[in-house]
């Protein structure tokens, strides 16, 4: 069966850099954005850009409701 393709949007201003999403992601496609501080002073989480399977684990573990997970309809329609 074809692997589901997905992607996530992270509200980086809301993010507190706790890392629970990164820890939970089975495909390891999330990371800290070490290059920026948000206005609260945290390094927010960021999607590496590919490899998300839209499992929702990151959403489920995020204590600050920063993450929206999308399921893309396979390939046909562009991002």
């Amino acid at each position, binding site marked *: 069966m074809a692997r589901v393709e997905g992607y996530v949007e992270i509200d980086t201003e809301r993010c*507190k850099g706790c890392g629970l999403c990164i820890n939970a992601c089975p495909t390891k496609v999330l990371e800290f954005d070490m290059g920026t*501080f948000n*206005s609260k*002073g945290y390094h927010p989480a960021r999607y590496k850009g590919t490899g998300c399977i839209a499992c929702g684990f990151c959403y489920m573990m995020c204590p600050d409701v920063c993450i929206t997970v999308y399921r893309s309809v396979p390939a046909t329609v562009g991002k």
Partner: protein
Amino acid sequence: MMAYHGIVIAGFGGQGVMLIGQLIATAAMLEGKHSTWFPSYGPEMRGGTANCTVVVDEKPIASPVVETPTEVVAMNYPSMMKFGKVLKSGGYLFINSSMIHETLDRKDIKLISIPVNDIADRIGNLKVANVVMLGAFLELTKTVEFKSVEEALREKLTGRKSALLDYNLRALEEGAKYVRKSMSTVG
């Protein structure tokens, strides 16, 4: 140097603003001066904004609260915006330029920008950024003497923490050094 200092030190929780306030107050006591330190926290449980007010004076301190500080230390942008406004005319505003990229639109104050995170990073311990700031602060305001702060630090950092003493002493010095070098740029 003036006898009375009413200092506000502000930043995120975790940036060590409380500690440097306590160091100033303790150093003042060691010099036989009067001093008070008073903290204030924002609504967040942790990691929110925090500030403290330090008063140093030759005579007993009546009011530990300060309407128009003689010096403000702002470790982050919201702190600069909030306390920069109430700083006494002619007073010092110290800002952490590693995190604050804007400046305050006041012509009647002395604005000192120090990239304390970067300096601390260079020293090898990001946690002493606050003490870098303290070094800069003391160098310019002469509120208390360096050696009193060193004494206060030695008293504080005992046991397991004594390993950190060197970092802190370096940080003090680097902060001072930085402003000595950039003195010429101060308006």
